[in-house]
């Protein structure tokens, strides 16, 4: 009798029960198997710390204009030089971290929550709700994300809140479709059917049984979309459709420096390096996450 129980427990745990401590250790080992992942986590950590403590790290106020000091080359006082209004480039890059990361995280969070809810609903309920929702998602995907975000931004206006809304809405379809696909794959599993049979309400079944088993590809997508969101915000700010001046966004800094490329290339080039470092780290972390969560590798 004891043997039989142990067998059952083993069989069930291999498939569907939540990850136990040994699973976590295995995951951590798989995740950090390549040394570059550690570097990327460090870079992201530095970026987050910089964003939070920007007021302590930056040597000057990023919006402090000083026309007498405009367009200075890098020196001991201004490590990256100054821009055309005499503002310290390094301080602006440091404060830009705040905007880029804030927009990135909030956009991914909003798009994730909204998209996952829609996908969960659509996949679980099925029928005409599913058809209508997915057709609308398909229509939104037909437009390139930037163009959709620009169109939304055109109507909503600039400013950080509207940028977050525009980007968030533009990214929702990806999550919705992925979630729906996952839900469809899991919907007919025994444990879900069992949930309904023992009297769980549809909502409870969705949240407690279906959702946890669908969520890992979406976590990977959210990590990689952090990079996408940061790039998109930089792009919108570069076009002048994003964050309102004079707040420093990396994208708008690249735009500002375009005219002074020959004399002061750092105004444009420095923020771009920052963007690349953060986005590259997000992508590599996303890849490592996907490989570590890959169920095939668990065997």
């Amino acid at each position, binding site marked *: 009798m004891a043997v039989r129980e142990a067998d059952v427990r083993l069989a069930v745990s291999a498939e569907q029960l939540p990850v136990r401590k040994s699973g976590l250790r295995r995951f951590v080992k798989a995740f950090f198997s390549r040394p570059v992942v550690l570097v990327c986590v460090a870079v992201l950590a530095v970026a987050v710390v910089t964003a939070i403590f920007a007021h302590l790290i930056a040597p000057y106020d990023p919006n402090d204009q000083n026309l007498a000091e405009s367009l200075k080359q890098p020196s001991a006082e201004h490590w990256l030089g100054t821009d055309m209004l005499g503002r310290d480039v390094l301080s602006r890059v440091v404060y830009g971290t705040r905007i880029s990361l804030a927009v990135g995280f909030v956009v991914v969070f909003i798009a994730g929550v909204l998209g996952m809810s829609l996908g969960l609903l659509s996949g679980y309920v099925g029928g005409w709700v599913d058809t209508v929702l997915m057709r609308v998602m398909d229509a939104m995907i037909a437009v*390139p994300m930037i163009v959709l975000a620009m169109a939304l931004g055109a109507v909503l206006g600039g400013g950080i809140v509207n940028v977050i809304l525009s980007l968030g809405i533009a990214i929702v379809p990806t999550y919705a479709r992925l979630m729906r696909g996952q839900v469809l794959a899991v919907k007919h599993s025994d444990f879900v059917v069992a949930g309904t049979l023992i009297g769980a309400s549809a909502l409870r079944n969705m949240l407690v049984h279906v959702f946890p088993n669908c969520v890992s590809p979406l976590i990977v997508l959210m990590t990689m979309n952090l990079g996408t969101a940061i*790039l998109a915000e930089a792009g919108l700010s570069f076009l002048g459709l994003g964050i309102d001046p004079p707040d420093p966004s990396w994208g708008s800094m690249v735009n500002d420096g375009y005219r002074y490329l020959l004399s002061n290339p750092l105004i444009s080039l420095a923020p*771009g390096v920052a963007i690349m470092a953060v986005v590259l780290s997000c992508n590599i972390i996303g890849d490592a996450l996907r490989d570590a969560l890959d169920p095939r590798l668990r065997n």
Partner: protein
Amino acid sequence: MATFIARRLIQTVVILFLLSILVFSIMHLLPGDPVAIMLGDQASVEEINRLRSELGLDRPVPVQYLDWLFGLFRGDLGRSIVYNEDVADLVRTRLPVSLHIGLSAFVLAVAVGVPAGIFAALKRGSWIDSLITVLANAGIAVPVFWLAILGIYLFSLKLGWLPVQGYTSPFEDFGQSLRQSLMPVVFLSLITLAQLARQTRSAMLEVLRQDYIRTARAKGLKESRVIVGHALRNALIPVVTLLGLSLAHVVGGSVFIEQVFNLPGMGRLMVQSIFGKDYIVVQSLVLIIATVVALCNLAVDIAYGLIDPRIRQSRSM
């Protein structure tokens, strides 16, 4: 096969129709009064109301929508406030520019990215694989507008090899057109190139692990036959599905490229219209861009159906 094409065609039409409703709703139902914005702070109430009835914006929304929709079929895309021209005329001059740069970039991305990915997969673990992987990872992390500016800094300002801005049609002066379009096309293609290289590499690696590849080798087939005849055909299937998405990325990137290199294309028109509060143009442009992308996706799906017989027989979603 014919039913498959017909089904996809109907799906595309439905999606475009839904999109027209979506775009129209965005432009008309979100907060903010476009007429007041167009005329500025100094406009009086009479002026606002007059412009509103001139533009037909005081009619019920569904009527406006149907009017716009039927106008589209007639070729009437509205009139631009900023340029004082018909949108159709604006599009006619600008679409070829965007198509030239965009399609060239797309072809370059596919022609270089896919073979690079295959090569990296075949030489897995070698320094070439590492190099290609690192470059591809960097390529998708880089902001395209920044890279273009870096390119201008190096190749135009420092080295003086290529002109900074400007556009000439290849039909007018091919040499000048080539010199001016080289940087825009190359930089526009880089991100898609990197993405395709990554996806092709992982698809190829996935296929090379399969049992049928081992069987083919065990049968004694030449390695080149194994790769080309068996591995490649199967690996390219997921890559083909990505081509549609890649095209959308190229269109998105072209907005930035046109801005940096000052090319008179659709992306630039859209940015200028947004700044000029020219909502009618923005509305029509979004729909046109989406139509072009949807049609290309349709072509890709049909090609996908031709390559993979399983798709033709499955039910549509």
